[in-house]
């Protein structure tokens, strides 16, 4: 029989060391898998981990890729901490993009510096709006928020599809499903450093993501609303005993996660795309779920977790392009990386005991 029993004291240095051990383990496993499949193992690892970050502009690309993941995961942490299973962040992201897109398309001639902050605000509201539907249905009719939020994702992507093919389509787009390009005032600038210039595609939205994740960490760990959320997740009867209203907590966490997802949608469009199109996200809303758990439901840890997952994505693309490795192999390797990180975390918190004595059931 194999049993896991919680460790009484968890050492802090071991907590920092665990991901390093996990990554090392993944590398060893990667060496074995790649050589069995007939690829040069060291070269494969190079293209997976080193090549995607070997130039400053590539590091910038990594940060840009991680930006929506960090943002959305920091918000999702609030849901999962309170046992609300919002898995519809993808749809909330799309609605953030739609709401802010509506503003941008109405001010195509504007050059006001207020446009961008207003777009951020309505993007947050848009994400909240889409997240409140499952929240209210759950409170009012006890529906399952997993199903509702997931299904609303498909509604959202069909809705943006309808908008860009129908009412919002640019008449000058030669029939392509695209809206007009946003005015410059509605776009997020790339980061310009004096004497250095631009660093790849690095844009100011990345800093917004970092800032939001720090703020959310503070709210969750140091403030009363975060305390309410954590108590509710740990024990709903303790929350009711304290006088917290579980329905309010549900509304609050859905608003926070919907808001961050909506903001991420707006940043994606305003920083990288510049107009609305049928597909504005590479499944960031779903990938962020993995990031949230990899971060052990801590908004601050969502930053490194988002970077790791982004690296795994970029590394996967890189070996596919450079070495012709099939997508399934890179998928297996990505899975292995995440599994080792989560397993390492588990072994950090639990003893494992093997007991094969006869008759112990």
């Amino acid at each position: 029989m194999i049993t896991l029993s919680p460790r009484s004291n968890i050492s802090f240095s071991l907590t920092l060391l665990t991901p390093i051990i996990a990554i090392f383990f993944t590398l060893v496993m990667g060496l074995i898998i790649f050589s069995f499949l007939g690829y040069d193992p060291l070269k494969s690892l190079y293209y997976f981990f080193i090549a995607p970050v070997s130039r400053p502009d590539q590091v910038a690309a990594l940060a840009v890729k991680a930006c929506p993941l960090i943002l959305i995961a920091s918000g999702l942490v609030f849901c999962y901490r309170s046992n609300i299973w919002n898995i519809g962040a993808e749809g909330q992201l799309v609605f953030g993009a739609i709401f802010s897109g509506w503003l941008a398309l109405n001010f195509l001639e504007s050059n006001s510096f207020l446009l961008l902050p207003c777009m951020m605000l309505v993007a947050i509201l848009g994400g909240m709006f889409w997240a409140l539907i499952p929240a209210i249905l759950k409170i009012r009719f006890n529906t399952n928020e997993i199903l509702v939020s997931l299904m609303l994702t498909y509604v959202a992507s069909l809705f943006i599809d309808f908008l860009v093919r129908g009412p919002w389509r640019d008449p000058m787009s030669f029939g392509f499903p695209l809206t007009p390009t946003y005015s410059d005032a509605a776009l997020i600038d790339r980061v310009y450093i004096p004497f250095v210039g631009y660093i790849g595609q690095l844009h100011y939205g990345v800093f917004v993501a970092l800032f939001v994740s720090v703020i959310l960490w503070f709210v969750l760990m140091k403030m009363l609303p975060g305390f309410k959320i954590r108590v509710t997740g740990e024990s709903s009867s303790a929350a009711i005993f304290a006088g917290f209203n579980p329905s309010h907590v549900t509304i609050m966490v859905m608003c926070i996660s919907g808001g961050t997802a909506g903001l991420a949608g707006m940043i994606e469009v305003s920083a990288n795309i510049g107009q609305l199109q049928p597909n504005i996200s590479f499944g960031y809303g779903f990938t962020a779920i993995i990031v949230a758990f990899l971060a052990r439901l801590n908004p601050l840890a969502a930053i490194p977790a988002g970077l790791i997952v982004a690296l795994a994505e970029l590394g996967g693309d890189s070996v596919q392009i450079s070495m012709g490795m099939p997508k399934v192999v890179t998928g297996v390797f990505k899975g292995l990386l995440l599994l080792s990180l989560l397993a390492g975390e588990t072994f950090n918190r639990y003893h494992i005991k093997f007991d094969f004595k006869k008759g112990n059931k």
Partner: protein
Amino acid sequence: MPHTEVLLSGENITKIFGDFKANDNVNFSISKGEIHALLGENGAGKSTFVKIIYGLLKPDSGNVIWKNEIIEINGPKHARELGIGMVFQHFSLFEALTVLENISLALPEKNQSDDLEKRIEEISNEYGLQIDPKSRVFNLSVGEQQRVEIIRCLLQNPELLIMDEPTSVLTPQEISKLFEVLEKLSKSGCSILFITHKLEEVRSLTSRATILRRGKNVSTVATKDHTAKSFSQMMVGHEINTNKYKKIKIENENLLKINNLSRPAQNQFSVELKDINFSVRGGEILGIAGIAGNGQSELMEALTGEYLSIEADKIVFNGFDISNLKPNERRKHGISFIPEERIGHATVSSFNLSENFYLTDYINDNSSNYGIINTSFNYENASNIVNEYDVRVPHNNPLASSLSGGNLQKFIVGREISRKPKLLVASQPTWGVDVGAALEIRSQIIKIAEQGAIVIIISQDLDEIFLLSDLISVIYNGKLSKQFDKEKVNLEKIGLLMGGSS
């Protein structure tokens, strides 16, 4: 010693969990037909020991000897095949099924037969365990459910019956009925291992007692040579001072009035509260006695505000109608609550003590500023409670889960009393708490009553009710009896009310 033939014995049984010795060289033996008590405080290792005998745990060292043979018990099924039966403290019955179905489910296939119902009736007649095999379990009282468990064991003809705290949920009348059954069983040759911490029972029922303290056995003695007091000394290891329980009666202006409080049943397993009326003054302790499942938790929720009654003026405290206030709003009126469940209700197990202090103190302006938690304030207050109420902690500001039951309860009581409440409502304040901690907790409760607070104790422990209360009411089937003056009512009268007769 009338019993000579040893049925089962344990030699130097040791069981270690992590670095904690739950059983440390325990020696024990029970003879054929003997009723033997296993005594000890919570955490003394009683449960570990019987789990080893019943095959649920394996000893790290030591031998279990059954009928003069060293054996290794592989699991509960093996134990039952050998002839060892066990009735657990928490029953394992399906509430929606009938007695017959429950028994049939638990029996091994070879014991199944068409005349099961007849055999149940035979056994229930033989030992006086009246039960209707066709009734559904959720309709049965706790005492009746226990009978079902006992019959289920007896159908397998055990030679040793282990009973884990069987009396903790019964009325005095039910207890004496149970004892008659056990005595009959013992006369027919079945040995009974009886786990308890109620000392009077040991003297009235058992012939010998083995006392455990911190995993070690203190001694095995003939019960007739000892008194409840000497037993408790052996259990705790030092003398117990019961004088602390003398309460000075004072009266002041604090007043709680409950007017026709009713509450419909939330589901088929919960109890409807019917027209509850009472009033208590400052300085008085009202004890609400009753067997589990008669509406105590429903009443507690109504008093804490976890359940809100819709109508106004149901609960009036010092002239304020608090009927529709949530628990935190009631706390602002100077009311404190100690719920029955320590973990997951009164505290969050994965939070440290200062966060658990904040859990019921966030209404205080000092514990947070503009929503930012004042960590040092909460830490200081939690540490003060730890010092003042003698909470034994493994290190500074530990997680609630790392405290033993008694120490966590002392922390909770300290947290609620340190706010100097004008009304304290406590449900089972010393349930599952060791003797020393129970003593501390009870004297703290008496102290705040002496300072003028109203105290309401909801408890299934009749001894506790009689120790603490000035006034006693009984809750039965969602109805509350009238209040009795403790001095003018006896145990028997209260016991009858608990059983539903008046």
